[in-house]
């Protein structure tokens, strides 16, 4: 299908595109540049790499900050954690509707991202600056408390596990020692059976030592106050004083979406008009009038009357460039 008739038609109806192709994107860009009425309160957390392998340190391929940010994001998806945040922030949770509204507000407005290897930024955006501050604060406090509690439980479990390891190692050592004592071989110190039993007893002793060491370490972790506190607040959330600026993504995406929408709408309108318009534009259109001879056509020169000199020079430049390229 030749594009020529379409282009010719477009040359007559191009004004139709103007509202869509120009005004709409401009309106969208203008809207995108408007400052929002949202306020964001944020807090920075410093997270430590756990010293004990007993404490879950997350995905070893990620940084501590990334692990913690993922951890918090996952927690925000749970009702129990979000509910604790809502209660901490004194959000209404009395009725089911209030609860849902509060949880939705927390989830939609809160974000956690790693801003460094050990730095996590937690923010909350809300229409009300005081609410933004309260919720951001509540998220951080709840998360730290929750992490502490979980870490403590993990260490308690580890101590219990270590204790059972120590018990097992002690039993194994006692068995090995009694085996050595009860052996009456004839080969003296060169008896291979005796040598093997002594080695087993020594290995059992070593295992017991390791188990004891691990037990003591985990007991220390459990008993020392603050050892489980692997997260510290470096920047406290505060009440924002000015609304948020325009985001870069919005600045780019809105005009792009606007242009796409404008082109789509213009194309749709154009297609509609071309389908419904039955004006005579080219010689082929006169086929609807049989027997009428086309004597000739007179080009439109109305647009040449008032010359726009900047545009004229631009066109001359393009023409010159075209000639150069063709040569």
């Amino acid at each position: 299908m030749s594009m020529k008739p379409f282009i010719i038609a477009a040359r007559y109806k191009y004004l139709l595109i103007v509202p869509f192709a120009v005004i709409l994107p401009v309106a969208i860009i203008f809207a995108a540049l408007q400052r929002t009425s949202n306020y964001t309160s944020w807090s920075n957390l410093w997270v430590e790499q756990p010293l004990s392998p007993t404490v879950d340190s997350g995905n070893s391929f990620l940084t501590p900050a990334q692990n913690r940010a993922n951890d918090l994001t996952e927690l925000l998806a749970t009702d129990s954690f979000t509910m604790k945040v809502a209660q901490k922030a004194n959000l209404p949770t009395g009725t089911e509707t209030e609860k849902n509204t509060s949880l939705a507000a927390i989830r939609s407005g809160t974000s956690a991202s790693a801003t460094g290897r050990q730095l996590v930024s937690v923010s909350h955006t809300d229409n009300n600056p005081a609410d933004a501050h309260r919720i951001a604060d509540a998220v951080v406090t709840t998360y730290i408390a929750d992490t502490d509690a979980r870490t403590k439980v993990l260490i308690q479990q580890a101590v219990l596990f270590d204790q059972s390891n120590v018990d097992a190692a002690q039993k194994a050592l006692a068995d090995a020692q009694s085996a050595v004592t009860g052996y009456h071989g004839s080969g003296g110190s060169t008896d291979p059976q005796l040598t093997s039993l002594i080695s087993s007893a020594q290995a059992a002793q070593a295992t017991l030592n390791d188990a004891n060491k691990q037990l003591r370490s985990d007991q220390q972790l459990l008993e020392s106050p603050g050892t489980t506190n692997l997260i510290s607040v470096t920047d406290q959330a505060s009440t924002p004083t000015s609304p948020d600026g325009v985001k870069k993504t919005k600045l780019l995406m809105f005009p792009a979406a606007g242009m796409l929408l404008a082109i789509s709408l213009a194309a749709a309108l154009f297609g509609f008009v071309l389908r419904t318009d039955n004006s005579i534009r080219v010689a082929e259109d006169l086929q609807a009038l049989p027997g009428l001879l086309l004597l000739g056509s007179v080009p439109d020169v109305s647009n040449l009357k008032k010359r726009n000199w900047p545009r004229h020079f631009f066109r001359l430049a393009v023409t010159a460039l075209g000639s150069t390229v063709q040569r």
Partner: protein
Amino acid sequence: MSLEQTRPWEAARNETAWGKKWSPALAQIDDLTLTAPVFGVIEERFRQIAARCLDMTSEAGSQSIAISSATAGEGKTTVSIGIASAAARNLGSDVLIVETDLRRPQLADDFRIEANLGLADYLSGEVELEPVIQPTRMENVWLLPAGRPSANPGPLLRSKTFQELLKNLHEAYGTIIIDAPPLLTSPHAAVIARQAEALLLVARAGRTHIQDAAQALKAVGDVPVRGIVLNGTREWLPGWVSRFLGVSRFAIE
């Protein structure tokens, strides 16, 4: 008409200050004659149109053609002037443009002629013919303007005086171009068209609808229609783009 000969015309155009009194029809002819290198295409198009609707041979006798359109603003006056100009240049005989749209006279203004009296006044018997026929600044082109606007031009245009006038004009002018009112909006257009040997229909590209053109053809009945001229066609690509691409500029060759 050479470029040199048109210099005074250019001066007159400058004096008039385009924005002050805008005349689309004359403006096109103005540009056509004055800036031949730019508007050579248009000049050539009018010459072709004139050759197709008029007998351009030296043996051609007096001939007349009515030029009309379905509705107003489609460019019949522009085409009338263009054909008159081309015929005058190529035939070398006098060409008279008769403006018959008595309700909305325009040609005197287009030619920037001070003409208070015209066809309507002659047909009313108020003036003689000679003083109302005006020379124009185009060589061999004369104008019989409409004169004072008439609210009821029907009786005048249907009168025997009008028929006799056209007959008499044939004796004096080689070519008579009747600039008729629009066929669908004026009930007298068909009557006027019958006074000419043939009718030429003008349509404005992108504006005249097929149905209107068909209706206009129906309105003229048995008047022989010489053909149609498509006015205001646009290049399928803007000139600078087509020059860049090195392709043909015009939609209709």
